[in-house]
């Protein structure tokens, strides 16, 4: 029987990580995720693990690189400007195919930005961020229950695919409190043995965790092809998405994370007015659930993308439906978010447009 708990998101994240067997955490203070290192500083020693307050975000991610190579389940967390600093290390970890979990409780940007919740790091998380051809698995919880469950699963995805996993939250998710069930951890995947780790070469040949591929000349090309094959496999196998009232929906809302909660409220409100609205909310934005959007585009008349940034996630929705339907956009950045009423207003507008010729173009 799962225990029901009331925590702030940042605190619950710590509990989930420890429950999943994470035994190494390194991080650096930054608002709005300070509760993570604070709670880790006493919970990790209780669990027999290691907490380090690193001298920088760069050092923290490199400590993760080392701890993961040593075979540990490990995690770092930060918020937007700090995640930018980690990008070098993330690229190396992806190159070396080491598992780890990286949490971004996003705040407003660019620059030092502000400390309100935002979703402006979507491109950075999903399209790269660091140098080179690599991908992160990017999970986008909208509730604390999802934050808990996806954190448990994140460690399994990381180990199973030997790939860094990012939990892309935001300041609201980190700071808010709501009840969640604290399920015991059970692996959801058949995890392979860690036969790549460095723990001293006793009884075996010495190993190298490589991030450099100079020789032969096509060594890096082949490594990149190997990575691409892995990413293609992840895309085939991993799809996490909520479809709400989509069966007969004429207007499909696309939103993820905290925006997805406001969008769901808006769908309910629109339905009360008799408007056939539905929501497709990814819980994982890489791999992107393109096929789900594409299938919805066969029936729906139009799409509305809602996000807490000025148009990042919307590009993936347009790509997914191959621009077959008009895509309207409602986004606010800088730490502000579209309200439920604003979303409903857009839904009404789109629903009323439905009788017009289908030449309407998506508004950005």
């Amino acid at each position, binding site marked *: 029987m799962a225990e029901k708990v009331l925590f702030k998101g940042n605190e619950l994240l710590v509990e989930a990580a420890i429950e999943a067997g994470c035994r190494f955490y390194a991080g650096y203070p930054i608002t709005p995720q300070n509760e993570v290192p604070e709670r880790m500083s006493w919970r990790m020693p209780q669990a027999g693990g290691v907490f380090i307050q690193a001298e920088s975000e760069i050092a923290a991610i490199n400590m993760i*690189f*080392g701890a993961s190579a*040593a075979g540990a389940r490990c995690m770092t967390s930060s918020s937007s400007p700090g995640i930018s600093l980690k990008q070098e290390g993330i690229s190396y970890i992806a190159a070396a195919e080491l598992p780890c979990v990286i949490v971004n409780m996003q705040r407003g940007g660019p620059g030092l930005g502000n400390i309100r919740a935002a979703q402006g790091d979507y491109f950075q998380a999903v399209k790269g961020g660091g140098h080179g051809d690599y991908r992160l698995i990017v999970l986008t919880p909208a509730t604390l229950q999802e934050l808990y469950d996806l954190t448990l699963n994140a460690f399994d995805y990381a180990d199973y695919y030997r790939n860094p996993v990012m939990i892309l939250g935001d300041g609201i998710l980190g700071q808010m409190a709501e009840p969640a069930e604290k399920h015991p951890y059970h692996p959801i995947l058949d995890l392979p043995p860690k036969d790549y780790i460095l723990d001293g*070469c006793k*009884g075996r040949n*010495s190993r*190298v965790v490589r991030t450099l591929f100079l020789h032969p000349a096509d060594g890096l090309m082949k490594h990149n092809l190997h990575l691409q094959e892995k990413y293609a496999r992840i895309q085939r196998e991993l799809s996490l998405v909520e479809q709400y009232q989509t069966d007969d929906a004429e207007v499909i809302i696309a939103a993820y994370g905290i925006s997805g909660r406001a969008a769901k409220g808006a769908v309910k409100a629109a339905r009360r007015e008799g408007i056939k609205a539905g929501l497709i909310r990814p819980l994982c934005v890489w791999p992107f659930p393109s096929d789900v959007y594409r299938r919805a585009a066969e029936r729906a008349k139009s799409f509305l993308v809602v996000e807490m940034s000025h148009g990042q996630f919307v590009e993936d929705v347009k790509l997914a439906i191959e621009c077959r339907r008009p895509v309207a956009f409602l986004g606010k950045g800088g730490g502000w978010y579209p309200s439920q009423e604003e979303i409903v207003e857009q839904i009404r507008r789109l629903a009323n447009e439905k009788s017009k010729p289908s030449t309407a173009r998506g508004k950005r």
Partner: protein
Amino acid sequence: MEFHRPRTLKNVLTHYCPGCGHGIVHRLVAEAIDELGIRERTIGTAPVGCAVLFYNYFDCDIIECAHGRPPAVATGMKRMLPDRIIFTYQGDGDLAAIGTTETIHAANRGENITVIFVNNAIYGMTGGQMAPTTIKGQWSTTTPEGRGKHGEGGPIRICEMLSALDGPSYLERVAVSSPKDILRAKKAVKKAFEKQIAGKGFSLVEVLSMCPTDWKLTPAQAVDFVNEKMKAVFPLGVFRDR
């Protein structure tokens, strides 16, 4: 007395230039690991710089790190595997420029790792640019009038700087520019590993080394440069031993 290749070194040719000090320092590290019988529980970190291909030469587990980050990577490894021996092998650009933060804080935490710091006062792999340890007046491809004419500051003395911290257990500066210096360097490297084995905390050996190629000197002149110029700026000796 027989002369053997240390077990910890692979039987391969290195890419180092004639007269380079890396080959000597590699051998000293490998001999120390052999003599302490720790090869099978030792994990090294490869740097960015001339020793970037370190893992082709050392027959122990190695992780290839980003530029300047080995002390942080080593920290993560050591904390998860406290009974293994973790060492970094870093040049001056790696350790004293881009990785200064990681160096200082690993030292300050007293992280129980061993750092082998090869100081040749130049960026070797990239072709001879100014290093943080390039001495005043020294020519490099980015100080064509000699260091110090255009606000470059002076050389950073790492052992002196780290000796201001409580964390380190052992700090020594040695050289590999004469047989006597090499013998002393060997003792220092071994002692640094012994400190880690004994759980004493952060140990670092700074090795003054030759780079004839990028100094534009012959190997013999490069030895003289270490003995006459570098030792005057970077005095040899033990800065911490406890």
